[in-house]
Protein backbone atom coordinates (compact mmCIF):
# COMPACT_ATOMS: atom_id res chain seq x y z
CA UNK A 1 0.00 0.00 0.00
CA UNK A 2 1.68 3.13 -1.16
CA UNK A 3 1.59 6.48 0.41
CA UNK A 4 -0.78 7.66 -2.27
CA UNK A 5 -3.41 5.07 -1.30
CA UNK A 6 -3.18 6.08 2.31
CA UNK A 7 -3.56 9.69 1.33
CA UNK A 8 -6.61 8.88 -0.77
CA UNK A 9 -8.20 6.92 2.07
CA UNK A 10 -7.53 9.78 4.43
CA UNK A 11 -8.99 12.26 2.00
CA UNK A 12 -12.09 10.13 1.59
CA UNK A 13 -12.51 9.90 5.31
CA UNK A 14 -12.08 13.62 5.66
CA UNK A 15 -14.62 14.24 2.96
CA UNK A 16 -17.13 11.91 4.55
CA UNK A 17 -16.74 13.42 7.99
CA UNK A 18 -16.84 16.94 6.64
CA UNK A 19 -19.93 16.32 4.61
CA UNK A 20 -21.80 14.48 7.30
CA UNK A 21 -20.83 16.99 9.93
CA UNK A 22 -21.88 19.92 7.77
CA UNK A 23 -25.22 18.34 7.13
CA UNK A 24 -25.74 17.39 10.75
CA UNK A 25 -24.76 20.85 11.85
CA UNK A 26 -27.23 22.35 9.42
CA UNK A 27 -29.95 20.13 10.76
CA UNK A 28 -29.00 21.06 14.28
CA UNK A 29 -30.39 24.51 13.58
CA UNK A 30 -33.61 22.90 12.52
CA UNK A 31 -33.60 20.72 15.60
CA UNK A 32 -33.04 23.71 17.83
CA UNK A 33 -35.83 25.71 16.31
CA UNK A 34 -38.19 22.76 16.51
CA UNK A 35 -37.38 21.84 20.11
CA UNK A 36 -37.55 25.40 21.37
CA UNK A 37 -40.79 25.86 19.56
CA UNK A 38 -42.31 22.83 21.22
CA UNK A 39 -41.01 23.85 24.61
CA UNK A 40 -42.69 27.20 24.03
CA UNK A 41 -45.95 25.60 22.82
CA UNK A 42 -45.37 26.58 19.21
CA UNK A 43 -44.91 24.48 16.11
CA UNK A 44 -41.72 25.92 14.63
CA UNK A 45 -40.90 25.60 10.91
CA UNK A 46 -43.68 23.72 9.15
CA UNK A 47 -43.78 25.01 5.57
CA UNK A 48 -40.76 23.65 3.73
CA UNK A 49 -41.07 19.94 3.38
CA UNK A 50 -42.80 17.61 5.79
CA UNK A 51 -42.85 19.38 9.15
CA UNK A 52 -40.33 21.80 7.72
CA UNK A 53 -37.69 19.17 7.28
CA UNK A 54 -36.17 20.93 4.29
CA UNK A 55 -35.97 24.24 6.12
CA UNK A 56 -32.17 24.12 6.76
CA UNK A 57 -31.50 23.56 3.08
CA UNK A 58 -33.76 26.40 2.16
CA UNK A 59 -32.03 28.59 4.72
CA UNK A 60 -28.65 27.59 3.36
CA UNK A 61 -29.69 28.45 -0.16
CA UNK A 62 -31.06 31.78 1.01
CA UNK A 63 -27.88 32.73 2.83
CA UNK A 64 -25.75 31.60 -0.05
CA UNK A 65 -27.63 33.76 -2.49
CA UNK A 66 -27.83 36.86 -0.33
CA UNK A 67 -25.71 39.90 -1.01
CA UNK A 68 -22.41 39.83 0.80
CA UNK A 69 -22.03 43.26 2.37
CA UNK A 70 -18.65 44.51 3.53
CA UNK A 71 -18.86 47.78 5.49
CA UNK A 72 -16.98 50.69 4.05
CA UNK A 73 -14.81 51.44 7.11
CA UNK A 74 -14.09 47.81 7.84
CA UNK A 75 -10.65 46.25 7.63
CA UNK A 76 -11.40 44.26 4.54
CA UNK A 77 -8.85 41.45 4.78
CA UNK A 78 -9.48 40.68 8.40
CA UNK A 79 -13.18 41.03 7.87
CA UNK A 80 -13.09 38.32 5.25
CA UNK A 81 -10.73 36.02 7.12
CA UNK A 82 -12.62 36.18 10.39
CA UNK A 83 -15.54 33.81 9.58
CA UNK A 84 -13.10 31.30 8.10
CA UNK A 85 -10.97 31.60 11.20
CA UNK A 86 -14.02 30.73 13.26
CA UNK A 87 -15.13 27.83 11.14
CA UNK A 88 -11.80 26.12 10.49
CA UNK A 89 -10.84 25.23 14.08
CA UNK A 90 -14.35 23.98 14.74
CA UNK A 91 -14.00 21.53 11.88
CA UNK A 92 -10.33 20.66 12.38
CA UNK A 93 -11.24 19.20 15.72
CA UNK A 94 -13.30 16.51 14.01
CA UNK A 95 -10.10 15.01 12.64
CA UNK A 96 -9.27 13.46 16.00
CA UNK A 97 -12.70 12.60 17.37
CA UNK A 98 -13.28 8.84 17.65
CA UNK A 99 -16.77 8.25 16.35
CA UNK A 100 -16.48 4.59 17.19
CA UNK A 101 -13.73 2.22 18.10
CA UNK A 102 -12.84 1.79 14.41
CA UNK A 103 -13.97 4.91 12.63
CA UNK A 104 -11.82 7.98 13.05
CA UNK A 105 -9.68 10.11 10.78
CA UNK A 106 -6.51 9.99 12.80
CA UNK A 107 -5.27 9.30 16.27
CA UNK A 108 -3.06 11.77 18.05
CA UNK A 109 -1.09 11.06 21.20
CA UNK A 110 -2.25 14.27 22.72
CA UNK A 111 -5.84 13.76 21.51
CA UNK A 112 -7.90 15.68 24.02
CA UNK A 113 -5.20 18.27 24.40
CA UNK A 114 -5.24 18.84 20.67
CA UNK A 115 -8.97 19.45 20.81
CA UNK A 116 -8.55 21.99 23.59
CA UNK A 117 -5.74 23.73 21.78
CA UNK A 118 -7.46 23.96 18.45
CA UNK A 119 -10.81 25.00 19.83
CA UNK A 120 -9.06 27.76 21.73
CA UNK A 121 -8.24 29.27 18.36
CA UNK A 122 -11.94 29.91 17.72
CA UNK A 123 -11.78 33.07 19.78
CA UNK A 124 -9.48 34.64 17.19
CA UNK A 125 -12.16 34.63 14.60
CA UNK A 126 -14.58 36.30 16.93
CA UNK A 127 -12.06 38.92 18.01
CA UNK A 128 -11.06 39.56 14.44
CA UNK A 129 -14.66 39.85 13.35
CA UNK A 130 -15.45 42.24 16.15
CA UNK A 131 -12.46 44.42 15.48
CA UNK A 132 -12.58 44.37 11.71
CA UNK A 133 -16.24 45.40 11.59
CA UNK A 134 -15.23 48.80 12.98
CA UNK A 135 -18.46 49.02 14.92
CA UNK A 136 -18.76 49.63 18.63
CA UNK A 137 -21.28 46.85 19.17
CA UNK A 138 -19.03 44.40 17.42
CA UNK A 139 -15.96 45.56 19.32
CA UNK A 140 -17.75 45.30 22.67
CA UNK A 141 -18.93 41.84 21.74
CA UNK A 142 -15.43 40.83 20.73
CA UNK A 143 -13.93 42.17 23.96
CA UNK A 144 -16.49 40.34 26.05
CA UNK A 145 -15.90 37.23 24.04
CA UNK A 146 -12.13 37.40 24.46
CA UNK A 147 -12.36 37.80 28.22
CA UNK A 148 -15.06 35.18 28.57
CA UNK A 149 -13.41 32.55 26.44
CA UNK A 150 -9.97 33.16 27.89
CA UNK A 151 -11.35 32.71 31.39
CA UNK A 152 -13.54 29.73 30.76
CA UNK A 153 -10.92 27.93 28.73
CA UNK A 154 -9.01 27.63 32.00
CA UNK A 155 -11.90 25.93 33.77
CA UNK A 156 -12.57 23.77 30.77
CA UNK A 157 -8.96 22.66 30.75
CA UNK A 158 -8.83 22.07 34.48
CA UNK A 159 -12.14 20.23 34.60
CA UNK A 160 -10.95 17.56 32.19
CA UNK A 161 -7.81 16.93 34.25
CA UNK A 162 -9.80 14.88 36.76
CA UNK A 163 -11.03 12.31 34.19
CA UNK A 164 -7.63 12.38 32.51
CA UNK A 165 -5.96 11.47 35.78
CA UNK A 166 -8.30 8.54 36.10
CA UNK A 167 -7.75 7.45 32.50
CA UNK A 168 -4.01 8.01 32.63
CA UNK A 169 -3.85 9.01 28.98
CA UNK A 170 -4.64 11.86 26.65
CA UNK A 171 -5.59 9.52 23.85
CA UNK A 172 -9.34 9.60 23.20
CA UNK A 173 -9.52 5.88 22.45
CA UNK A 174 -7.84 4.99 25.70
CA UNK A 175 -10.00 7.37 27.67
CA UNK A 176 -13.07 5.65 26.29
CA UNK A 177 -11.64 2.23 26.99
CA UNK A 178 -10.86 3.24 30.58
CA UNK A 179 -14.60 3.72 31.10
CA UNK A 180 -15.62 0.22 30.16
CA UNK A 181 -16.78 -0.44 33.74
CA UNK A 182 -18.01 2.83 35.12
CA UNK A 183 -18.47 6.13 33.30
CA UNK A 184 -16.32 8.90 34.66
CA UNK A 185 -19.36 11.07 35.27
CA UNK A 186 -19.99 8.95 38.36
CA UNK A 187 -16.43 9.30 39.58
CA UNK A 188 -16.16 12.95 38.63
CA UNK A 189 -19.54 14.65 39.03
CA UNK A 190 -17.93 17.93 40.07
CA UNK A 191 -15.67 17.93 37.05
CA UNK A 192 -18.63 17.24 34.80
CA UNK A 193 -20.67 20.11 36.21
CA UNK A 194 -17.77 22.52 35.76
CA UNK A 195 -17.05 21.13 32.30
CA UNK A 196 -20.60 21.57 31.22
CA UNK A 197 -20.86 25.15 32.46
CA UNK A 198 -17.50 26.03 30.91
CA UNK A 199 -18.59 24.39 27.66
CA UNK A 200 -21.70 26.57 27.57
CA UNK A 201 -19.52 29.62 28.03
CA UNK A 202 -16.96 28.48 25.44
CA UNK A 203 -19.62 28.01 22.81
CA UNK A 204 -21.25 31.35 23.66
CA UNK A 205 -24.51 29.62 24.42
CA UNK A 206 -27.30 30.76 26.70
CA UNK A 207 -26.93 31.63 29.55
CA UNK A 208 -23.48 32.89 28.59
CA UNK A 209 -24.25 34.39 25.19
CA UNK A 210 -22.97 37.81 26.20
CA UNK A 211 -20.80 38.35 23.08
CA UNK A 212 -23.80 38.19 20.82
CA UNK A 213 -26.47 39.38 23.20
CA UNK A 214 -29.26 40.46 20.86
CA UNK A 215 -30.90 42.79 23.31
CA UNK A 216 -27.76 44.73 24.27
CA UNK A 217 -25.31 44.45 21.42
CA UNK A 218 -27.58 43.79 18.46
CA UNK A 219 -25.90 40.39 17.88
CA UNK A 220 -22.43 41.50 19.00
CA UNK A 221 -19.46 40.51 16.94
CA UNK A 222 -21.41 39.44 13.87
CA UNK A 223 -23.67 42.47 13.69
CA UNK A 224 -22.09 43.61 10.40
CA UNK A 225 -21.98 40.20 8.76
CA UNK A 226 -24.42 38.93 6.23
CA UNK A 227 -24.85 36.20 3.70
CA UNK A 228 -22.48 33.28 3.64
CA UNK A 229 -20.07 34.82 6.16
CA UNK A 230 -22.92 35.02 8.65
CA UNK A 231 -23.72 31.40 7.86
CA UNK A 232 -20.13 30.50 8.72
CA UNK A 233 -20.47 31.93 12.20
CA UNK A 234 -23.69 30.03 12.59
CA UNK A 235 -22.19 26.78 11.39
CA UNK A 236 -19.17 27.24 13.62
CA UNK A 237 -21.33 27.71 16.69
CA UNK A 238 -23.24 24.50 16.09
CA UNK A 239 -20.10 22.64 15.13
CA UNK A 240 -18.61 23.73 18.44
CA UNK A 241 -21.66 22.45 20.28
CA UNK A 242 -21.15 19.13 18.57
CA UNK A 243 -17.49 19.14 19.54
CA UNK A 244 -17.99 19.87 23.21
CA UNK A 245 -20.83 17.36 23.32
CA UNK A 246 -18.52 14.81 21.77
CA UNK A 247 -15.82 15.59 24.29
CA UNK A 248 -18.33 15.35 27.10
CA UNK A 249 -19.54 12.00 25.83
CA UNK A 250 -16.00 10.78 25.41
CA UNK A 251 -14.70 11.96 28.74
CA UNK A 252 -17.67 11.44 30.99
CA UNK A 253 -20.16 9.10 29.35
CA UNK A 254 -18.05 6.28 28.01
CA UNK A 255 -17.94 7.28 24.35
CA UNK A 256 -19.23 4.56 22.07
CA UNK A 257 -19.54 2.02 24.86
CA UNK A 258 -23.05 0.83 25.49
CA UNK A 259 -24.95 0.29 28.66
CA UNK A 260 -24.60 -3.30 29.77
CA UNK A 261 -26.44 -5.90 27.73
CA UNK A 262 -28.20 -3.80 25.11
CA UNK A 263 -26.72 -4.98 21.79
CA UNK A 264 -26.36 -1.87 19.71
CA UNK A 265 -23.33 -0.97 17.58
CA UNK A 266 -20.93 1.51 19.14
CA UNK A 267 -21.72 4.17 16.59
CA UNK A 268 -25.38 4.14 17.52
CA UNK A 269 -24.60 4.49 21.15
CA UNK A 270 -22.37 7.36 20.30
CA UNK A 271 -25.05 9.16 18.34
CA UNK A 272 -27.61 8.53 21.07
CA UNK A 273 -25.44 10.02 23.76
CA UNK A 274 -24.46 12.92 21.54
CA UNK A 275 -28.11 13.61 20.80
CA UNK A 276 -28.94 13.65 24.48
CA UNK A 277 -26.14 16.09 25.21
CA UNK A 278 -27.18 18.42 22.40
CA UNK A 279 -30.77 18.26 23.57
CA UNK A 280 -29.64 19.46 26.98
CA UNK A 281 -27.85 22.38 25.33
CA UNK A 282 -30.99 23.40 23.51
CA UNK A 283 -33.15 22.80 26.51
CA UNK A 284 -30.98 25.15 28.56
CA UNK A 285 -31.25 27.81 25.89
CA UNK A 286 -35.02 27.61 26.09
CA UNK A 287 -35.02 27.78 29.86
CA UNK A 288 -32.42 30.11 31.33
CA UNK A 289 -31.99 33.91 31.17
CA UNK A 290 -28.66 35.54 30.35
CA UNK A 291 -25.98 36.26 32.93
CA UNK A 292 -24.63 39.72 33.54
CA UNK A 293 -20.97 40.24 32.72
CA UNK A 294 -19.72 40.69 36.31
CA UNK A 295 -21.80 37.70 37.41
CA UNK A 296 -20.17 35.64 34.71
CA UNK A 297 -16.68 36.54 35.88
CA UNK A 298 -17.54 36.04 39.53
CA UNK A 299 -19.08 32.64 38.84
CA UNK A 300 -15.97 31.64 36.95
CA UNK A 301 -13.15 32.84 39.14
CA UNK A 302 -14.67 32.73 42.58
CA UNK A 303 -16.78 29.59 42.34
CA UNK A 304 -15.72 27.31 39.54
CA UNK A 305 -11.99 27.86 39.81
CA UNK A 306 -11.70 26.78 43.47
CA UNK A 307 -14.16 23.99 42.80
CA UNK A 308 -12.20 22.54 39.96
CA UNK A 309 -8.92 22.92 41.84
CA UNK A 310 -10.41 21.05 44.78
CA UNK A 311 -11.56 18.37 42.37
CA UNK A 312 -8.06 17.91 40.97
CA UNK A 313 -6.60 17.80 44.46
CA UNK A 314 -9.16 15.28 45.67
CA UNK A 315 -8.74 13.10 42.61
CA UNK A 316 -4.99 13.13 43.05
CA UNK A 317 -5.32 12.34 46.74
CA UNK A 318 -7.72 9.48 46.18
CA UNK A 319 -5.64 8.15 43.35
CA UNK A 320 -2.49 8.38 45.43
CA UNK A 321 -4.07 6.75 48.43
CA UNK A 322 -6.21 4.02 46.95
CA UNK A 323 -5.08 3.22 43.43
Amino acid at each position, binding site marked *: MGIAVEAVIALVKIAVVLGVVSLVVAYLTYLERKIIAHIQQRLGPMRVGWHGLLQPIADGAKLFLKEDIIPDKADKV*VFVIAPIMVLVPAFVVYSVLPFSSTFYI*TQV*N*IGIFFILAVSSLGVFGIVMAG*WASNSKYSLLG*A*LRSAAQMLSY*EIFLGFSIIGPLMLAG*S*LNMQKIVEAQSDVWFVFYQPLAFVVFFIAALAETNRVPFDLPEAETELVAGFHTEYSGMKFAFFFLAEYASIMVVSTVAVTLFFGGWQGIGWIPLPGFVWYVLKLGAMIFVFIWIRATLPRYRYDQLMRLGWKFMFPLVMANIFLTGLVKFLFL
Partner: protein
Amino acid sequence: MELAFFYLFAAGIVGASLLMVTRANVIHAALLLVLAFLFMAGLFVLAGAEFLAGVQILIYAGGIMVLYLFSIMLMNVGVAVRLRQWHRQSVLALAAAVLLGAEVWAVLGRGGYPGAKAWGWGLGQTPGNVEALGEVLYTKFLFPFEVASILLLAAMIGAIVLAKREITR
Protein backbone atom coordinates in the same frame (compact mmCIF):
# COMPACT_ATOMS: atom_id res chain seq x y z
CA MET B 1 8.81 13.92 3.03
CA GLU B 2 9.70 15.22 6.46
CA LEU B 3 12.17 17.63 4.96
CA ALA B 4 9.55 18.90 2.54
CA PHE B 5 7.17 19.64 5.39
CA PHE B 6 9.99 21.28 7.28
CA TYR B 7 10.65 23.63 4.40
CA LEU B 8 6.97 24.33 4.07
CA PHE B 9 6.62 25.25 7.73
CA ALA B 10 9.90 27.13 7.79
CA ALA B 11 8.88 29.18 4.81
CA GLY B 12 5.56 29.89 6.49
CA ILE B 13 7.20 30.97 9.70
CA VAL B 14 9.79 33.19 8.06
CA GLY B 15 7.29 34.75 5.71
CA ALA B 16 4.76 35.45 8.44
CA SER B 17 7.47 36.86 10.69
CA LEU B 18 8.83 39.16 8.02
CA LEU B 19 5.35 40.41 7.25
CA MET B 20 4.68 40.79 10.94
CA VAL B 21 7.72 42.95 11.56
CA THR B 22 6.88 45.28 8.72
CA ARG B 23 3.15 45.82 9.37
CA ALA B 24 2.04 49.28 10.34
CA ASN B 25 -1.19 47.99 11.81
CA VAL B 26 -0.56 46.28 15.10
CA ILE B 27 -3.58 44.02 14.81
CA HIS B 28 -2.38 42.68 11.49
CA ALA B 29 1.03 42.11 12.99
CA ALA B 30 -0.41 40.19 15.91
CA LEU B 31 -2.52 38.02 13.62
CA LEU B 32 0.49 37.30 11.45
CA LEU B 33 2.43 36.32 14.54
CA VAL B 34 -0.35 33.90 15.39
CA LEU B 35 0.02 32.46 11.95
CA ALA B 36 3.74 32.08 12.51
CA PHE B 37 3.03 30.31 15.79
CA LEU B 38 0.66 27.90 14.11
CA PHE B 39 3.33 27.02 11.59
CA MET B 40 5.73 26.62 14.48
CA ALA B 41 3.35 24.20 16.16
CA GLY B 42 3.41 22.19 12.94
CA LEU B 43 7.19 22.25 13.08
CA PHE B 44 7.12 20.98 16.65
CA VAL B 45 4.88 18.09 15.69
CA LEU B 46 7.36 17.32 12.95
CA ALA B 47 10.18 17.34 15.52
CA GLY B 48 8.33 14.90 17.76
CA ALA B 49 7.35 17.49 20.33
CA GLU B 50 3.61 16.93 20.13
CA PHE B 51 2.84 18.17 23.60
CA LEU B 52 4.88 21.28 22.98
CA ALA B 53 2.92 21.85 19.79
CA GLY B 54 -0.29 21.67 21.80
CA VAL B 55 1.11 24.05 24.37
CA GLN B 56 2.25 26.38 21.60
CA ILE B 57 -1.28 26.57 20.22
CA LEU B 58 -3.14 26.55 23.51
CA ILE B 59 -0.96 28.90 25.54
CA TYR B 60 0.81 30.99 22.94
CA ALA B 61 -1.75 31.32 20.22
CA GLY B 62 -4.89 30.80 22.29
CA GLY B 63 -3.74 32.59 25.42
CA ILE B 64 -0.93 35.06 25.09
CA MET B 65 -1.85 36.34 21.65
CA VAL B 66 -5.48 36.74 22.63
CA LEU B 67 -4.23 38.79 25.54
CA TYR B 68 -2.28 40.94 23.08
CA LEU B 69 -5.30 41.43 20.86
CA PHE B 70 -7.43 42.21 23.86
CA SER B 71 -4.97 44.82 25.09
CA ILE B 72 -4.52 46.31 21.66
CA MET B 73 -8.27 46.73 21.35
CA LEU B 74 -8.34 48.48 24.70
CA MET B 75 -5.80 51.02 23.40
CA ASN B 76 -6.48 53.32 20.55
CA VAL B 77 -4.35 52.03 17.70
CA GLY B 78 -5.99 53.95 14.92
CA VAL B 79 -3.71 56.95 15.43
CA ALA B 80 -0.52 54.93 15.62
CA VAL B 81 -0.95 53.63 12.09
CA ARG B 82 -0.55 57.11 10.64
CA LEU B 83 2.60 57.95 12.62
CA ARG B 84 6.18 57.32 11.57
CA GLN B 85 6.81 53.62 12.08
CA TRP B 86 10.56 53.31 12.01
CA HIS B 87 13.10 54.29 14.58
CA ARG B 88 15.88 56.66 13.59
CA GLN B 89 18.52 54.00 14.15
CA SER B 90 16.72 51.62 11.77
CA VAL B 91 19.28 51.52 9.05
CA LEU B 92 22.15 50.92 11.43
CA ALA B 93 20.18 48.26 13.25
CA LEU B 94 19.27 46.50 10.07
CA ALA B 95 22.89 46.53 8.97
CA ALA B 96 24.02 45.12 12.29
CA ALA B 97 21.36 42.41 12.14
CA VAL B 98 22.33 41.42 8.63
CA LEU B 99 26.00 41.33 9.61
CA LEU B 100 25.20 39.22 12.63
CA GLY B 101 23.15 36.94 10.39
CA ALA B 102 26.11 36.50 8.08
CA GLU B 103 28.30 35.62 11.01
CA VAL B 104 25.81 33.09 12.31
CA TRP B 105 25.61 31.65 8.84
CA ALA B 106 29.38 31.21 8.92
CA VAL B 107 29.27 29.60 12.33
CA LEU B 108 26.57 27.19 11.25
CA GLY B 109 28.48 26.36 8.15
CA ARG B 110 31.26 24.93 10.26
CA GLY B 111 28.87 22.20 11.40
CA GLY B 112 30.46 19.55 13.53
CA TYR B 113 27.63 18.54 15.87
CA PRO B 114 27.59 15.21 17.67
CA GLY B 115 25.65 12.55 15.89
CA ALA B 116 21.92 12.29 16.10
CA LYS B 117 20.14 9.80 18.28
CA ALA B 118 16.77 8.30 17.54
CA TRP B 119 13.68 8.94 19.61
CA GLY B 120 12.35 6.06 21.63
CA TRP B 121 9.04 6.58 19.91
CA GLY B 122 7.84 7.47 16.46
CA LEU B 123 5.24 9.91 15.22
CA GLY B 124 1.67 9.09 16.15
CA GLN B 125 2.62 6.12 18.23
CA THR B 126 1.56 5.53 21.78
CA PRO B 127 2.69 6.07 24.42
CA GLY B 128 3.37 9.57 23.24
CA ASN B 129 5.93 11.88 24.60
CA VAL B 130 3.43 13.47 26.97
CA GLU B 131 4.09 10.79 29.56
CA ALA B 132 7.84 11.06 29.14
CA LEU B 133 7.75 14.83 29.33
CA GLY B 134 5.57 14.76 32.44
CA GLU B 135 7.92 12.27 34.02
CA VAL B 136 10.93 14.51 33.44
CA LEU B 137 9.14 17.73 34.27
CA TYR B 138 7.87 16.54 37.63
CA THR B 139 10.99 14.73 38.78
CA LYS B 140 14.22 16.07 37.37
CA PHE B 141 12.94 19.59 36.73
CA LEU B 142 10.57 19.88 39.65
CA PHE B 143 12.43 22.75 41.23
CA PRO B 144 12.63 24.88 38.06
CA PHE B 145 8.97 24.07 37.57
CA GLU B 146 8.10 25.45 40.99
CA VAL B 147 10.28 28.48 40.34
CA ALA B 148 8.38 29.09 37.13
CA SER B 149 5.11 28.94 39.02
CA ILE B 150 6.37 31.55 41.49
CA LEU B 151 7.48 33.66 38.55
CA LEU B 152 4.00 33.45 37.05
CA LEU B 153 2.45 34.45 40.36
CA ALA B 154 4.78 37.42 40.67
CA ALA B 155 4.04 38.46 37.11
CA MET B 156 0.31 38.19 37.74
CA ILE B 157 0.50 40.41 40.83
CA GLY B 158 2.79 42.83 39.02
CA ALA B 159 0.49 43.07 36.04
CA ILE B 160 -2.54 43.71 38.23
CA VAL B 161 -0.76 46.40 40.22
CA LEU B 162 0.58 48.09 37.09
CA ALA B 163 -2.59 48.08 35.08
CA LYS B 164 -5.03 48.87 37.85
CA ARG B 165 -6.62 52.27 37.67
CA GLU B 166 -6.21 54.09 40.92
CA ILE B 167 -9.61 54.44 42.47
CA THR B 168 -10.19 57.78 44.17
CA ARG B 169 -13.25 58.12 46.28
